């Protein structure tokens, strides 16, 4: 085996094992056939091309596994509901932006970050409903990366919901499919319900516009996330709905947990319940994923 061949084989490790088992030998043959006579290293363009090809094949294989295991509808439901929740969570950021505009001492970077925090998820929601799935998925990952770096105030619990939304947009048929599965009336009702509870809780527990004002929408997300579970038994696709609800359960419980830690006004029994529900939601999520056979397939 030549040095170049060994180096090409090392590069091909980035491909899924199933793909390598079928195609590795012929890919090596093609790579060696197209190499220059004295070439010892894979060229930069070949390397970039192989990595890009591996990414596409990984994505397609994962989508295939998800489709075979019946996860695509669950992820489509997560895609639409998580985005609605993230739009509402960004509402307090609009208040912070308004306050920043009124205070001329705020830096231009703060303006940009706050504007991004306000507009990112509404724009991504519009893109995903307009069937621009790929663009929406890329924008979701960018928004998630930026918010994880820039907004320590937002906390890791919202980041978990953002990651879930970005994953759902990447691997599902899209938010439009989620609307089709749940029904437009249900999705609109869900959005209106979360908004009302968010406004009520923000009024009840938050004083002025502060990081704590995130907590109102956060708890609303939590309550309505679990409401989804109650609906699953009566829907046409109970499996997809149940999986979506359990996928949403962990970030929503974490957000509610954060709300409790930020607000002394929350009654002790609510706080205690959330301490129990947080590990329970993680456990339920793992059991659901395992029972669906997804872990075994991987």
């Amino acid at each position, binding site marked *: 085996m030549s040095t170049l061949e060994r180096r090409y084989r090392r590069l091909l490790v980035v491909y899924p094992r199933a*793909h390598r088992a079928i*195609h590795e*030998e*012929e*890919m*090596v*043959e*093609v*790579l*060696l*056939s*197209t190499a220059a006579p004295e070439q010892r290293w894979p060229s930069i*363009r*070949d390397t*970039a*091309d*192989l*990595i*890009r*090809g*591996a990414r*596409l*094949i990984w994505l*397609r294989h994962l989508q*295939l596994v998800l489709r075979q295991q019946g996860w695509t509808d669950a992820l489509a439901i997560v895609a639409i509901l998580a985005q609605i929740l993230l739009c509402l969570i960004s509402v307090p950021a609009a208040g912070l932006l308004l306050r920043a505009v009124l205070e001329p001492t705020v830096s231009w970077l703060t303006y940009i970050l706050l504007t991004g925090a306000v507009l990112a998820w509404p724009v991504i929601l519009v893109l995903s409903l307009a069937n621009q799935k790929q663009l929406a998925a890329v924008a979701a990952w960018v928004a998630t990366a930026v918010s994880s770096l820039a907004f320590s105030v937002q906390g890791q619990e919202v980041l978990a919901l953002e990651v879930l939304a970005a994953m759902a947009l990447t691997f599902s048929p899209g938010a439009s499919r989620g609307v089709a599965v749940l029904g437009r009336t249900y999705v609109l009702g869900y959005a209106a319900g979360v908004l009302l509870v968010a406004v009520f809780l923000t009024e009840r527990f938050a004083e002025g516009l502060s990081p704590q004002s995130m907590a109102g929408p956060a708890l609303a997300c939590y309550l309505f996330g679990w409401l989804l579970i109650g609906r699953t038994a009566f829907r046409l696709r109970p499996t997809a709905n149940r999986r979506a609800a359990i996928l949403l359960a962990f970030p929503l419980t974490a957000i509610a947990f954060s709300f409790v830690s930020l607000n002394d006004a929350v009654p002790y029994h609510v706080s205690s319940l959330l301490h129990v529900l947080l590990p329970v939601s993680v456990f339920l999520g793992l059991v659901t994923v395992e029972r669906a056979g997804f872990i075994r397939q991987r």
Partner: protein
Amino acid sequence: MTVRSLQEPTFLILTALAAGPKHGYGIITDVTRISDGRVRLRAGTLYAALDRLHADGLIDFDRDEIANGRLRRYYRLTDAGAGRLAAEVDRLRRHANAAARRLRAAGVTPYGLARGAA
């Protein structure tokens, strides 16, 4: 339902296979020839396209051969692949005809030669 147009590398790979079964390197050289050297497929792009086309049922494995101690897997166009390529050719021809008609009406031949300004 409207069928999305094929991307150029995909169109050229299907065109290469329309002439008969080919292995990976054979497809790359044929695509370069068909496109007059303009499109040079690399292995990563080729095998991502072949993986997708196989999953969509447009191509299939034909046979394996060993040449100089190395595996060469041949791919062939399926009936569905031939149909998809024919539909794309028809779509491109209709668009080209429409463009040519309008160019002629504007006094320009499809080869870029003006008939002369009025």
